[in-house]
C-alpha cells in the first residue's frame, strides 16, 4: 500500500497533477541522457537543456503524450523501480530518515505510482492510506516549486499526518516535472541527526527529481514490455551510482556500468551480473554470504539498508569502500516485487576524512602542549608570593587557559563523534552516586542545585564514569548558567519505563519552540545565547547527545514559560534497583525534604 509522509486529512485545493494539455517545453531536460549541467548560482539552478523526446515530437507536429499516456506505455514495475531508486538515492545521499517519490494520477489520487523508504512495513499497513494532494503536497503541485522548512509543523499549509505515521520535523519536497508542469514530487522528511535540510540538500534533491523527469521524458511510446525494460536499463545505466535491481526471485533484472566499474563480479550466460559472486564484506573484514547482501535482505526480509558502509573487491583486486543502500520494491498493494541496491564509491571521501582526522588530531595535540605549559606555570605562580593585582592577572590567565583547554577537548570529541571513533569503556556504576559527585564538583553552583534521588535503592547502569560525568556536568553548568540568579536548579533521578531517568530543570527563559529541535546540533547556539554574550562553541549538547547515544541512552529537552526548561536523559538499567539498607551511606546535598511529591506521584523511583 502506498503511503506518504504527508498530510492526508481535510480536503483542500487539489493540485493540478495531470498535465495532459500542457504544451510547455520541458522545463528540465534529459539530465542523464543528454548530459545536463547543474550548477549552483546563489541558490538557483541553471540547467543546460538537451533535445527531448517531447521536443522532437513537437517539432514533428505531433501532440506530445501526457504523463498518463507515457506511463500506460511503460511497465508500471519499471517506473516503480526508477522511483524507488531515486527515493533511495535521495535518502542515502541527502541523509534523511524518510524519503518518497510519486508520479502520475489525478486531482484526487495524485500518485498512481508511489515509492517510499524509511517506514517499516508493519507501520505502512497501519497507516493504510494513499497520499492525497492536500496541504503542502497541494502547494507543491499548485505552485510548482520546492518547499524546504526546518519544522514542517510550523508551515501555514501543514495538515496533520495520518495516525501511525512517523512524525516529521524537517522537510524537503521538490516537484518532479513533466512538460513544464508537475507530474509528482520527491519528498524527504527528518534530516538525520536532527538537523535541517540545507541549500545543498535542496540542490541534490532537485537534481534527483530531474533524473526522474529525464527518465519519464525518455520513456518509450509504444514499445511494449521489452521496450520498458530497455528504457529501465538506459535510465539506470546513466546514473553515477552503482545500481543493482533484482526481481522477486532474486534474479538480477538489471545493473549498470557504474556498479561494474568498482565491483568485481561474474556474469551469467545471459550477460547479467551474478549476485552470488559479489565479494562484499563488512568494514571489519567479515565476508557477507551471498544471501546476506543488502539487496537480498531487502528482498527476503524487506529490510531497509540506509547508507551503510561495506567493502567490495574492486576490478583491480583492491578494496573499495562503498556506501550501500537497499530497499524492497513494493507494489501499491504492498507486495514485494523485487529489490534495489545502490552503491556509492566513497574512496575519495574516506581518504579526505582520514586526512581531516589526522589534521584534527595533530592540531589538538599541538595545542594541548602549550596549554599544558601555561596551565602548570600559572598554577605554580599562584603558589608564590604575588601582589593582589598580580594574583588577579594570573587567575585570569588560568581561567582563560582552562576555557581554551575545554574548547580543544570539545573540538576533539566532536571530531571523534563525527568520524564514529569515540569509544566508551562501560562498567557497572551507581548513577545516583555519580550524580551526587558531579553536583558536588560543579564549581560555585552546588549550593543552587537541589537533588532528588531514590533514598531506598541504588540505580546501576553500565557506563563510562568519566564520559557520563562530562554529560551531567555539561547539562548542570548550562542549567545554572541560564537560570536567574535567585533560583534553584533541580536534579531528579528516578526510574521511568524501565530506564534510569535523569531530569535537570531550571526556570530560566524558555528555549523558543522553533529552536528546541536543533539545540543538539553541532555548533548550535540559541538566539538568546548569542544575544546574551554567553561564550562557547555550541558543541556541548552535540557531544552530550553523542555520549548518551554511545551508552544506548536518549537525551531530549522540553521547554515552556510555566515549567522552565528540562533536559531528560535516560539510560538502560543494569539490573533492577538495589535496595539500600538504612542508614543511607551516601552523601546527599540539601534535598529540602528529599523526593518531592510530584515526582512520587508521577511514579518516580
Amino acid at each position, binding site marked *: 500500500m502506498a503511503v506518504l509522509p504527508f498530510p492526508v486529512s481535510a480536503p483542500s485545493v487539489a493540485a493540478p497533477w495531470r498535465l495532459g494539455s500542457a504544451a510547455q517545453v520541458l522545463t528540465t531536460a534529459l539530465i542523464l541522457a543528454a548530459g545536463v549541467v547543474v550548477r549552483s548560482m546563489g541558490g538557483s539552478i541553471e540547467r543546460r537543456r538537451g533535445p527531448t523526446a517531447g521536443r522532437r515530437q513537437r517539432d514533428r507536429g505531433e501532440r506530445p503524450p501526457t504523463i498518463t499516456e507515457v506511463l500506460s506505455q511503460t511497465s508500471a514495475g519499471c517506473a516503480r523501480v526508477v522511483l524507488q531508486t531515486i527515493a533511495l538515492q535521495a535518502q542515502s545521499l541527502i541523509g534523511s530518515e524518510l524519503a518518497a517519490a510519486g508520479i502520475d494520477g489525478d486531482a484526487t489520487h495524485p500518485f498512481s505510482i508511489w515509492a517510499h523508504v524509511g517506514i517499516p512495513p508493519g507501520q505502512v499497513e497501519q497507516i493504510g492510506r494513499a497520499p492525497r494532494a492536500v496541504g503542502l503536497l497541494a502547494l507543491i503541485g499548485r505552485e510548482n516549486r520546492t518547499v524546504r522548512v526546518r519544522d514542517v509543523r510550523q508551515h501555514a499549509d501543514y495538515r496533520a499526518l495520518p495516525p501511525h505515521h512517523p512524525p516529521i520535523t524537517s522537510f524537503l519536497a521538490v516537484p518532479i516535472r513533466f512538460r513544464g508542469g508537475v507530474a509528482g514530487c520527491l519528498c524527504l522528511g527528518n534530516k538525520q541527526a536532527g538537523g535541517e535540510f540545507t541549500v545543498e540538500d535542496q540542490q541534490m534533491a532537485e537534481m534527483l527529481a530531474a533524473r526522474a523527469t529525464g527518465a519519464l521524458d525518455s520513456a518509450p511510446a509504444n514499445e511494449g514490455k521489452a521496450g520498458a525494460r530497455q528504457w529501465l536499463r538506459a535510465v539506470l545505466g546513466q546514473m553515477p551510482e552503482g545500481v543493482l535491481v533484482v526481481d522477486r526471485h532474486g534474479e538480477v533484472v538489471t545493473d549498470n556500468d557504474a556498479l561494474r566499474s568498482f565491483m568485481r563480479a561474474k556474469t551469467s550466460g545471459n550477460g547479467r551480473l551474478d549476485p552470488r559472486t559479489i565479494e562484499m564484506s563488512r568494514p571489519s573484514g567479515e565476508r557477507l554470504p551471498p544471501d546476506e547482501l543488502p539487496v537480498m535482505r531487502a528482498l527476503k526480509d524487506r529490510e531497509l539498508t540506509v547508507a551503510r558502509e561495506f567493502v567490495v573487491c574492486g576490478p583491480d583486486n583492491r578494496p573499495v569502500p562503498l556506501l550501500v543502500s537497499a530497499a524492497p520494491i513494493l507494489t501499491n498493494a504492498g507486495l514485494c516485487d523485487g529489490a534495489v541496491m545502490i552503491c556509492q564509491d566513497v574512496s575519495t571521501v574516506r581518504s579526505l576524512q582520514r586526512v581531516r582526522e589526522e589534521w584534527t*588530531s595533530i592540531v*589538538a*595535540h*599541538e595545542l*594541548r*602542549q*602549550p*596549554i*599544558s*605549559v601555561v*596551565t*602548570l*606555570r600559572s*598554577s*605554580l605562580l599562584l*603558589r608564590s608570593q604575588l601582589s593582589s593585582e598580580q594574583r588577579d592577572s594570573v587567575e585570569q590567565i588560568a581561567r582563560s*587557559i582552562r576555557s581554551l*583547554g575545554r574548547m580543544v577537548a570539545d573540538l*576533539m570529541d566532536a571530531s*571523534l563523534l563525527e568520524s564514529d*571513533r569515540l*569509544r566508551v*569503556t562501560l562498567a557497572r556504576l551507581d548513577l545516583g552516586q555519580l550524580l551526587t559527585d558531579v553536583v558536588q564538583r560543579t564549581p560555585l553552583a552546588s549550593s543552587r542545585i537541589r537533588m532528588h534521588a531514590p533514598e531506598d535503592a541504588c540505580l546501576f547502569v553500565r557506563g563510562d564514569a568519566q564520559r557520563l560525568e562530562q554529560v551531567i556536568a555539561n547539562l548542570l553548568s548550562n542549567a545554572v548558567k541560564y537560570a536567574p540568579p535567585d533560583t534553584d536548579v533541580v536534579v531528579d533521578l528516578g526510574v521511568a519505563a524501565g530506564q534510569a531517568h535523569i531530569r535537570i530543570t531550571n526556570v530560566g527563559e524558555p528555549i523558543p519552540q522553533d529552536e528546541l529541535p536543533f539545540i543538539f546540533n553541532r555548533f548550535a547556539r540559541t538566539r538568546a545565547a548569542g544575544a546574551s554574550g554567553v561564550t562557547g562553541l555550541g558543541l556541548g549538547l552535540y557531544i552530550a547527545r553523542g555520549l548518551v547515544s554511545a551508552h544506548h541512552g536518549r537525551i531530549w529537552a522540553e521547554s515552556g514559560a510555566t515549567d522552565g526548561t528540562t533536559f531528560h536523559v535516560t539510560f538502560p538499567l543494569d539490573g533492577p534497583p538495589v535496595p539500600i539498607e538504612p542508614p543511607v551511606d551516601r552523601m546527599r546535598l540539601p534535598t529540602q525534604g528529599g523526593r518531592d511529591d510530584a515526582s512520587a506521584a508521577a511514579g518516580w523511583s
Partner: protein
Amino acid sequence: MVPARVLVADDDADMLAAVGDALASLGFDVRSVDSGAGLIDCLATDGPFDLLVTDISMPWMDSLKTLRSIRTAGVTTPVIVITALTDAQIPNRVQALGANTILLRKPFDLDELAAAAQRMTAGSPAGPEQQR
C-alpha cells in the same frame, strides 16, 4: 630525609621545564632528559629513581617502547605517562606496562600532577609529602 628522586623526560623544552619546576615545588629531587635514549642513559648512570614522568611522543623511540624495554630489563620504578595524544589504544598500552604505571592526559594542572605523583610514590620511603 633524602627527597624522592624523579626523572622527567619530554622533548618539548618548555613542558620539560614546567613539569620539572612543578615537581620540584612539590618537594621532589628532579632530573630532566629530553629523549627516550636520555631516559635509559640516565636510569643506568644516575639511578635509582623513585618515579619516572615521561611524555609518550618523542623522536626516534616513543616512551612506551622505551618503558617496555625498561620493564623487560627488570626496572619496576613507578611511571606517570603524560600525553596529549587521543589514540584510543593508549590506555591499554599504558596498562600493559604494569600496575605501577598511570596515564595523565594533557593539559593537567599542578593539583592533578601532585595527586598522580603522590599516588605513585605512596609506598616510597621518601615521598614528597615527607619533605614538608
